Structure formats: structure tokens, C-alpha cells
């Protein structure tokens, strides 16, 4: 008799833990051929709020770490992902019905992207900061700081797309609440397992699975969220509603780009969109 598989229960990733949805709901996730892959947790409004609380609690510690330390942690995520390449390749093939070569391309690119962003942690300040030669006896310096808690509506690319939107936010010191791709949520939770074992403090990245149309509006209108990245929103009407809701506390907004080719090398924009510039004036005197 062949061995019976031990199947994985896919739950949410909030505050470093893997809870079920408090709503007790789940939804069916199928593979590319329409066969059952697993039941994913269907996050509720309360799960979203819990995730924001976790992200807010993690923000002072994470943004207060040295840039060198954040770089090492994000690099560590890449290291752990490298060790689990085969698992992710298998998950991508199952979820998207892509060839082994294609799956390998995406996993490689995701690891390389993490490494690329990791290196930015202690360089972005030098590239986007400034000493300003004001006309007076003052030492004046502008430096970037993370905006705070950022909600991310992740795009369809279940691994590379997700890594490409999350890495630039956390490497600069933001903490995030991610709504995973509704159709392909499972890889996001498996990536959560990688993060949970990579020295990334709990709450820096929180992953919700479920209905984008249900969860995203709660995050867009949440008054303790500082920014929202709408990259993965492909419903134009929903995107407008979310941007309108985001205005309630003037969240920084990144508009949708669901069809981005994630294999293309990014520029700085995904980091700088959710950075603030702080300018400090110090008198010069004796």
C-alpha cells in the first residue's frame, strides 16, 4: 500500500504566528487544471485589523534596527529560500501549471531580487538623502525614513511578484500587511514560513489570504495604516474606491500595475514611494 500524504493546513501569517481566520472561514484553492490544491484561510475584517496591530507593534523595533542589520535579515530570507528551492518550484508548478524550467526561473529571480534589495538597506539613505547648503549658519541634512505600516495588495505572481512588492518595503524599515493573490495564495503562506525562520521579527510581514474585494477596503480606510500599494488590484472600480478611502488619512498610494513583468529589473521607485524625507536644521556656532 502506498503511503498517505500528510497535507499542510494553510493558515494566515500574523505577528509571527500562523493563526486560522478568526471568522472560521476557508475557501477552495484549485490548481491550474481545476483540481483541489488546498483550502486557504479566508481572512476577515478582524484578521486585517489584527494584522495592522501586529505591523504597528513591529514598526518601532524594525525601523529602529541598523540598516546593516535589516540588510542581513533580508539576505537571510534569500538564504533560507535558496535552501527550499525545490519546494517552491513544485508549488509554483502546481499552482500555475508552468513548466519546471519556468518555475525555476521564477524561484531564482525571487531569490536574486531579495539579495538585490537586501543590499539597498544601507545605501538608499546615501542615494536619496542630501546635505543642503542653506544660506545661513546651519548644518542641514535630509534623510529618508520609512512611512510606517503599509498595506500591500499583492499581484498574481505568487512568488516573484510577491517578493518584488514586499522586499523593497521592509528593507527600508516599513512593516507590511499583505493581501496575497486571491487565486494563488498558498505560496505566500509558504513564504511566510521562510520569513518566520529567517530572523525577520514577527509582525514585520503579515500575510492575509482571502477575498481582495472584501479585505482591501478595510485596509484602505484603516486610520493606522500609512500607505497602500495597489499593485495587484485589477478591478479598476475597486482601485478607485480604495484610493478614495485611502484619502481619509492621506495614505501614500501606489496605483495599480497588475500586469507588471516581474522578471524586469526594478528601479528605486518601489522603495522611495513609501519613504518620507526628514530635514533637520542644526545651528553652527560656538
Amino acid at each position, binding site marked *: 500500500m502506498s503511503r498517505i500524504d500528510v497535507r499542510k493546513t494553510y493558515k494566515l501569517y500574523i505577528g509571527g504566528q500562523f493563526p486560522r481566520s478568526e471568522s472560521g472561514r476557508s475557501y477552495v484553492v484549485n490548481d491550474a487544471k481545476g483540481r483541489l490544491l488546498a483550502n486557504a484561510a479566508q481572512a476577515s475584517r478582524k484578521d486585517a485589523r489584527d494584522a495592522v496591530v501586529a505591523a504597528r507593534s513591529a514598526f518601532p523595533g524594525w525601523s529602529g534596527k541598523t540598516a546593516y542589520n535589516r540588510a542581513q535579515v533580508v539576505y537571510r530570507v534569500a538564504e533560507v529560500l535558496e535552501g527550499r528551492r525545490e519546494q517552491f518550484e513544485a508549488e509554483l508548478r502546481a499552482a500555475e501549471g508552468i513548466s519546471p524550467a519556468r518555475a525555476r526561473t521564477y524561484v531564482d529571480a525571487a531569490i536574486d531580487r531579495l539579495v538585490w534589495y537586501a543590499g539597498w538597506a544601507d545605501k538608499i539613505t546615501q*542615494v*536619496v538623502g*542630501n546635505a*543642503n*547648503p*542653506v*544660506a*545661513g549658519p*546651519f548644518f*542641514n541634512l*535630509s534623510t529618508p525614513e520609512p*512611512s510606517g505600516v503599509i498595506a500591500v495588495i499583492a499581484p498574481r505572481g505568487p512568488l516573484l511578484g510577491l517578493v518584488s512588492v514586499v522586499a523593497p518595503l521592509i528593507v527600508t524599515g516599513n512593516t507590511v500587511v499583505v493581501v496575497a493573490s486571491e487565486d494563488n495564495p498558498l505560496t505566500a503562506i509558504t513564504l511566510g514560513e521562510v520569513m518566520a525562520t529567517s530572523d525577520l521579527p514577527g509582525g514585520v510581514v503579515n500575510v492575509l489570504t482571502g477575498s481582495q474585494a472584501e479585505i482591501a477596503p478595510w485596509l484602505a480606510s484603516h486610520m493606522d495604516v*500609512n500607505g497602500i500599494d495597489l499593485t495587484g488590484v485589477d478591478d*479598476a472600480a475597486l*482601485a*478607485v474606491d480604495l*484610493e*478614495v478611502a*485611502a*484619502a*481619509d*488619512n*492621506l495614505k*501614500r*498610494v501606489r496605483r495599480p500595475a497588475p500586469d507588471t513583468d516581474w522578471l524586469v529589473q526594478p*528601479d*528605486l*521607485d518601489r522603495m522611495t514611494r513609501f519613504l*518620507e*524625507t*526628514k*530635514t*533637520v*536644521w*542644526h*545651528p553652527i556656532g560656538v
Partner: protein
Amino acid sequence: MSFEYAPAPESRAVVDIKPSYGLFINGEFTDGTGTAFKTINPATEEVLAEVAEASDADVDEAVKAARRAYTRVWSRMSGAERAKYLYRIARIIQERGRELAVLESIDNGKPIKESRDVDVPIVAAHFFYYAGWADKLEYSGYGSTPLGVAGQVIPWNFPLLMLAWKIAPALACGNTVVLKPAETTPLTALLFAEICQQADLPPGVVNIVTGAGDTGRAIVSHPDVDKVAFTGSTEVGKAIARTVAGTDKKVTLELGGKAANIVFDDAPVDQAVEGIVNGIFFNQGHVCCAGSRLLVQESIADDLLERLKRRMSTLRMGDPLDKNTDVGAINSGEQLMRIRELSEVGDAEGAERWEVACDLPTKGFWFPPTIFTGVSQAHRIAREEIFGPVLSVLTFRTPSEAIEKANNTPFGLSAGVWTDKGSRILSMANRLRAGVVWANTFNKFDPTSPFGGYKESGYGREGGRHGLEAYLKGADA
């Protein structure tokens, strides 16, 4: 011994206020099709001029003129040539500096010594600074591709300075503009339009449309405007963010504030008192980054407040054109009502009011420099922007408590720290969630220094290299 000053009024002869003004569209003054309105001198309530109101159709004409100038002239011109126009404008502003300062004080109510020594020199410096960027944009980090037509709406507190913050970087980057000055302070913007004519700036590169909220809405929502830049209230800023949702418009918002000015027990106390006074009574407190919440360490609070009151008693309030005046007129009757209303809320909520004893002029809009003590975090006067010469005083014991209180606000525009200890300045500056932090100084501005807020104080930066980002498409465009 009394120590009185004789009046020292600046002459009004240098300005020539016309009885009526039109809109400045495509390089010419034209009649508006809206309902003309009057602008008054807030110090005397004297009617200064009648000003055209731009209707939706007028705004559309202005946007069309800006688009034509963008595609046919301005976006095709080399950066080096654009720079020369901006340098010309900077020079004419310097040449006509006194005229601009006097007109600003008449229309706005601010003391001549501020319009003459702060506003106008920084306006000229701003044009001079951004002129030099026009042919160096490839070094900016934001590329060198302009956005197109910028719609800009500015407030009444620094009419000409806000115009400079908007127009100088926009033009340097190769954009053309449609700008609306505030309805209570349109005159220096209209004089600036004449300066554009004197500089032979190509028609349509700068268009000035006057009016109130409806005119502003027409600009912001115009489909052919590529970029919206707004300075003003957080409420209107949020409305603009909603209006542009789902469009490709790029937006920068510079909104309200409730800055904490934090004084530690080791601060140079007389300097700190000057900084507190400058922080909240400069420009009658009509400053979005005003130090409107004084956080003073408990151990020195009594002494500091006594010195502060003594210093406030020497502030001279009155004729904005008098060269000795420190505090001028409130800009409008409407704003005066708001200051009075919030101050009365302060009384009702149990804070203790102290104001400078002085004779207020019988005409015009006046409010004496005022402080409230015994203020708690929950009081409305500690949370809401009063935008007037009213200081709320709170105390703290530890640096952490100061940070907690300073950051406990939806705003995040500016903050001040007063201490003799360098390491404490750096630690406080790191932990304050605000876009501008002044250490042992306050309310300093410079064209090279980025300005703008965190959280509900808006987004985007004006000034410095960072200020170019708002008017360029980005490095990979």
C-alpha cells in the same frame, strides 16, 4: 520708564494698485466670466481692488494656453534657455522687491519687516536656485522629463512665497502652470504676472487665475492637468486626493500641522524664548509649520513661562506697514472667527488663557498674542490647527514622554528641539515623526532645504533637489 516707538510707516507710494484686475491667461490680462470679488486690506478693511473670478470656462482657457505653451515652446526649449528666463524673473523680483513687500503687507496684513526681510528675499532666492537646476536635471536622480501642465493652488499666508515654491521648480523642469492664488490675497500673484511680461516669458507658460474654492476645484479636476500641487488645509487636501483617485495625475500636498516645540531644562533659555515667539507669532501664527504646541520640561516651566510672557509683552502689534511692527493683522474676518472659536473652546475645556494686554485697532482683524497653559493632550487646542497667534503649553518630564506627546497627532509637518546636548538633539530628531526638525532654531526656510510633512500633513517635498521630483516623470521615463 516707558519706551515708546514713534510710528515709522513704510511708504505706500511704491505700489500702484489698480481698481480692478483680470485673469492672466496666455500672457495677457483678460476679463473673467465669473462674479468679480473684492480684496481688502485686513488691517483696515479698506477695499483694495476688484478681482475677476475664473469660471470653469476660464480655467479651461488657461489650461489650453498652458498646454499650447508646453507642447510648442517650453518643453522644446533647452534647459539652459529656460534657466535664463527664471534668472530674469529672480532679478526682477529683487529689483521690484520693495514694491512686492509693500503690496504683500497691504493685501495680507503681515508686518513689512517680515515681507521685506523674509518673504521677498526667499522668493527671489527660490527662483534663482531652481533656475540653476533647469539645465542640470539629468543629475537630479529624477530624470529630466517634465510632466506637462501643472495645476497649482496656494494659500493666503505666504502668497508670493508659496507662488515661488510652486512655479519655480515647475518651470525649471519644463512644465507650464495654471496657478490660483488665495481669494483674500491675489494681488502679488497678479503683480508677478506683470513680472512675467517684463521678463518676456513666452505666453501661456505661466497663467494666473483668481477665484475661490470653485476655481480651485476646476483646476484640480481638469482632465488635461497632469500634476496637482496644493498648499492649504488638510480638509481640502483630502478632498483633492479623492478627486484625483483613479487618474494618472501626480499630486503633492502640503497641509496642516500642530508642531511640538520641545524645550529641555538645559536649553539656552533666552534663545528658546525667542524661538518660541518666532515659532508661533511669526506671521501672526498663520504658518502651517508653526510651533503651536510648546512642550516644556516640567522643572523649568514656571521660569520659562514668566520669561515668555515678559517677552510677549514687548511685541508691537499694529499697522503692518510700520517698520517696528512685530505682529500684524489676521488675514480675514473668517480666520479671525476660527481663532476666536477655538480659543473659546480652550477656555471651555479648562485651559488657562493669558494674552498680551494691548489696544487693538478698531478697524481690521486683530487677535492678540495668546498662550494657554494647563493644556492636556485631549484638548482641542492641543490637537487642532488654530492657524493664529495662539500657543498651547504642555509639560513633560522625560525625553520619552516628550516624544510620545509630540508624535501624538495626525499631523507631522515640523518640530523643534531646544537643548544644549548634541546627542539628545540627534536622538530626538530621529524619533520625531515630522518632515522638518529645527534644533535650537525655528521657522527657518531655504530654497535648498526640502519642506513637507509626514502623515496627514501631506506628501511630497518642496525645495531642494527633492523638490524636483514633484515635476519630473522619474529616472526611467
